[in-house]
């Protein structure tokens, strides 16, 4: 099958590659570029494990062809840490609040939460739940994921985090 030239920025680095037109972005990232943080849970855009940030939007990379991402700016979980190598507030929050168990949904969940907090700096619990409803988790029951995102929001806003009473 004839291949197409693509060029995109992934986690700040420009990538040029030849891909089959039918290659999905998630397969391009994982199999061709060894960016294995984003995962595949369904390939039908339901589970969100493959979520990446593409030109300022949360995108399920199993439902985008690599050729469609030509010219785009992508961020995956591998590009989430701060420039000095310390963990992003969301990464810290997920660990502090026990917002993960098997870790399979975590990369997509954190990348999605990153965009959510870009759009809404102080989301309510309801807004967080709605905001991550495109990302499935089978382990945590979401309660601690909500807290993790609240923790990160507080840290990014420079205010003390207060855990809601049970």
């Amino acid at each position, binding site marked *: 099958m004839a291949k197409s030239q693509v060029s995109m920025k992934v986690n700040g680095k420009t990538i040029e590659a030849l891909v089959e037109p039918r290659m999905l972005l998630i397969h391009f990232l994982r199999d061709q570029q060894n960016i294995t943080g984003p995962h595949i849970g369904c390939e*039908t855009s339901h589970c969100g494990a493959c979520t990446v940030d593409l030109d300022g939007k949360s995108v399920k990379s199993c439902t985008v062809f690599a050729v469609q991402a030509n010219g785009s700016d992508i961020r995956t979980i591998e590009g989430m840490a701060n420039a000095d190598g310390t963990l992003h507030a969301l990464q810290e929050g*997920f*660990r*502090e609040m026990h917002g993960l*168990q*098997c870790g*399979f949904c975590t990369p997509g969940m954190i990348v999605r939460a990153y965009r959510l907090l870009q759009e809404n700096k102080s989301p309510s619990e309801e807004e967080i739940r709605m905001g991550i409803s495109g*990302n499935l988790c*089978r382990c945590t029951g*979401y309660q601690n994921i909500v807290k993790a995102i609240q923790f990160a929001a507080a840290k990014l806003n420079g205010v003390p985090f207060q855990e809601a009473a049970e």
Partner: protein
Amino acid sequence: MNDMTPTSAERAAKLEGMGCKRKRVEDIRFVQGKGNYVDDLKLPGMLYGDFNRSPHAHARIKKIDTTKAAAVPGVVAVITAETLKTVNLAWMPTLAGDVQMVLADGKVLFQNQEVAFVIADSRDAAADGADLVEVEYEPLPVNVNPLKAMAQGAPMIREDLKDKTDGAHGKRKHYNHIFAWQAGDKAATDAAFAKADVTIRELIVYPRCHPCPLETCQCVASFDKIKGELTLWGTFQAPHVIRTVGSLISKIPEHKIHVIAPDIGGGFGNKVGAYPGYICSIVASIVTGVPVKWVEDRIENLSTTAFARDFHMDMEIAATKDGKVTAMRCYTIADHGAFDACANATKWPAGLFSIISGAYDFPTAHVLVDGVYTNKAPGGVAYRCSFRVTEAAYAIERAMDIMAQKLGMDPAEFRIKNLIRREQFPYTSAFGWQYDSGDYHTAMNKAMEAVNYKKLRAEQKAKREAFKRGETRELMGIGVVFFTEIVGAGPSRACDILGIAMFDSAEIRIHPTGSGICRLGTKSQGQGHETTYAQIIATELGLPADNIAVEEGNTDTAPYGLGTYGSRSTPVSGAATAMACRKIKAKAQMIAAYMLEVHDDDLEWDVDRFQVKGNPERFKTMTELAWAAYHEVPPGMEPGLEAINYYDPPNFTFPFGAYICVVDVDVDTGTTKVRRFYALDDCGTRINPMIIEGQIHGGLTEAFAIAMGQEIHYDDEGNVTTASFMDYFLPTAVETPHWETDWTTTPSPHHPIGAKGVGESPNVGGVPCFSNAVNDAFAFLGSTHIQMPHDHWRTWTAAEKLGLHA
């Protein structure tokens, strides 16, 4: 080095041992996308395998033509049953004593059954090839209803067993019959029913569902022709069992098989068994001489590997008119699909289903289970529960409500009257299980007080009156559950898998500088073993948890173990860890005595050190003793500081809990809103309360999914209609209720650290609690039992049948 040190309590806190909400070690890699899952693995020259699958639920195969598939650019080989026969691998043994086709041999028995395996140089080429395998089928009559499986003239599912009169567990009653298994005292139970004041009987169906971890089943097989060795990476909850089974099936000597389970993206029972994908990948690697990867997609996962439940339970309880239970009996039809690939301890074809008398003091009881073949996928795994325990808990907890309703008693009051009392422990149930410990009434009372149960019932009463007056269209339901589990399989006298006793193991090596490594036969799939086992060691040995590495999943380095499922890691390997620590500590004590020039008996343990009795300024810390073990051991003693323990538990453990749920049901839409869910769990000694709470949140969410929407459904032609996330319910953050957790602590008397296991309690207790709540909403209108799952349609239909839409 014996300088002034902090107090015992301060030193203990620094260890981050048992009871500490220690942050998880594994999270550091997971939050950075640096987990190491099977599909992340890429080996030089690696090929990809994909299946051609049957569109029919039951059909004879007339012809398979692989010409077009083989011609697809990139396709390297196509394997069919005929290929597998040349290496005697067309069929494989199952864990349940049956055999299963690896690739369809002569006919297909369920939809999406594996027919041909295409190997290619890319995922896409393998998929293209699989699409182009041409199979000519002659459809056969289909049966997907287990209640009709043993009818006269029912379609014969297993022609290969036509002449087999004995199943794995005795005489077969019918050509679709697999096993009959019973427990308890039939004669005494029937006699008790004959003279009972009050009896209830209800067909309680626990529908087929699927564990559905977010990561599907997958593997990479790499056969080294020069060495004759196989390395198999895979999503295995039980790596050593896979190695042994792999050796028995493939005839590759066991020491030449290396099984590695890296990080696993959730298991919940799905990843216990051995599947055709693994066998085909191994054969493909042997044939091609290069590594072969197989990754199941979501439809394949939901429709072929490891369903759960599908128990059809005819449940009865007898009681006196003042509300004392006198007997229970249950006749169950268990649908095992086309092959009996149920993952149970070998002697227990219905698992530990005889925990069905629950937390109640039944004088006598009897169960009988018939397993049958149908044209559905094989499996029968424990989806986040010990073998068949959730089915048992569902049946008894629903039945207790139905009996309370008949007696006109409050369901909580009826339970309290029949709960096993604290002074009865250790308690021997009517089925012969010895419940290790419990304080049920304390737990139940605490739960009722926490939710203000009386006030809830008063509110419900008022709402029911308002409903009758036509002032509201909402019904309030209160679900009450008291469950007891049986986990930690298990004692070798009762449990084995293919003859291997269900012990588990831990090997601990303490290094000269006082850090160490612990290797185990279990395998975490998200439970946080790297964090919690280190906490047990921290408390037992007085070394900081941060200084202990925990390693699982590599059969070359880990001691033999039976793996992680059925909440067995803490009860069995947790015990092995503590026992190995105690061997190390005993040696350290001798070294300390030698160094301090006192008798062993003159020393006492204090948090992280041995000190001279009555003279605590004279001590040796464990860190000092670790160094000494490699430097100045007493004459005649072996150097080094390590130990291994294979723990064969003396009994199961019996965690328990009291759950209460409040729902509001809209009778016009069938919508159920969970207003409140309170879960009190008693798992004995608590190792890491943060992780326990997280496990309970997750288990309750899975219970919510099962009770309110999950079902693997087949139409009459055997088409599976729920094999994607469009149709199979996984709750999002929006539907998922808020969870309130609580606890009591009743240690297990026979476990070295008193721990019982917790991961599965919320599923076992949660499912009946939601179901009881929905059923309770309608109970005052005379409804006794509405089948799960309680989705909008089913709930609306129940309201319709009760005439509520008139």
